[in-house]
């Protein structure tokens, strides 16, 4: 049956409407999970609040395992799903820059908008910085265009690269995620004991 748009079950003109609906749902869940507070987000780095890790890992393993069952039941053809192309080094560098910005500013791009939505000033400044950064990157793009396109592997999955079936990765990721949930709970408790002034 799925994916719905490539299979023509939903017309192509609907993709922006669906994007808006998913965007609203995503923003609502981010805010509901407490991601509009930069303290919660930065807590991962300082070890007193791992809600980000738990929320994103939960979303990841539920979606991952769910997609595999959908494929098995024939509701979704995984071979027709768009896979983001992989550029190894640029992605690592990008990840480091993103992480640095995350811990410095206390937001990631998506959560900064939920912060604005509930009227946080730091989120507003973060977003202004975000657009300045995009503008600067666009202007300077010719300088690192070569690096930007380097190390292209194409639209590969871990299964394509290693030959190990996707279900083994799903199981391994799930175990790692669940271990992280329980492990971070212990860390949280210890760190919070030594903290005096903190409101969640």
């Amino acid at each position, binding site marked *: 049956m799925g994916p719905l748009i490539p299979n023509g079950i939903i017309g192509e003109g609907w993709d922006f409407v669906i994007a808006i609906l998913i965007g609203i749902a995503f923003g609502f869940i981010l805010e509901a999970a407490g991601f509009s507070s930069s303290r919660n987000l930065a807590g991962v780095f300082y070890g007193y609040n791992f809600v980000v890790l738990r929320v994103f890992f939960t979303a990841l393993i539920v979606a991952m*395992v769910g997609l595999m069952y959908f494929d*098995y039941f024939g509701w979704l053809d995984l071979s027709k799903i768009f896979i983001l192309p992989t550029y190894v080094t640029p992605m690592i560098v990008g990840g480091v820059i993103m992480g640095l910005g995350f811990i410095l500013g206390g937001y990631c791009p998506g959560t900064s908008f939920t912060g604005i939505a509930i009227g946080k000033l730091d989120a507003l400044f973060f977003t202004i910085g975000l657009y300045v950064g995009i503008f600067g990157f666009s202007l300077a793009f010719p300088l690192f265009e070569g690096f930007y396109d380097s190390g292209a592997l194409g639209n590969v999955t871990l299964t394509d690269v290693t030959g190990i079936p*996707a*279900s*083994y990765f799903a*199981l391994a990721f*799930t175990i790692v995620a669940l271990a992280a*949930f329980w492990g971070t709970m212990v860390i949280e408790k210890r760190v919070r004991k030594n903290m005096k002034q903190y409101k969640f």
Partner: protein
Amino acid sequence: MNRNYIFLTILMIILAAGTVFLTMDSEPKQIEPEELLQEIIQPTRYVSTDQVAKMIIQGDPSLMLVDVRSEEEFAKYSLPRSINIPIKNLLSDGNLGYFGVPGTKVVFISDDDIKADQMWVFVKRLGFGSTYVMKGGLNCWMQTIIDPERPSDDAPYKDFETYTFRKGAQMYFTGAGADVPDASKIDVLVRRREKTNIASGGC
């Protein structure tokens, strides 16, 4: 500890472990139904017994004959250089590896064209090209190549040409003796190599 967390953790582990037992990609890739229908209505997939005989005699290396009858029938009689893939064995024993080889023409053979046509549809559906069906199957092969019928005397010249070829093919395939018609005189053209004065190498 929250009990819900423990329950959800166990549930997630069971679900993730379950994916290991799912048989993924059990269905082979197939072409779109519309495309298959378009191909089915084309008569271009048929090749005549004469064309097949000609290719066998010439030793055409691109020809691959696939007999789709059962093993017993194949053992009783088969065309030279043909291989046996019964329809029910198409997806087993790596038989699909025979199809889609660049530069080869696969011709399906059965007693008539029905089974060969079925096989053709299956293979086409799996997305392989360059596959053909021998029109009339082995029944037609027997009538035209093994036991060709002499055309009537007022038949067009083309029929006689075909008949001559079939008689030759009959000899090739059965080893039957040639019955040379009395009146026919065959001019044998002897091609001589033209003499050349150009010195071809030497010390």
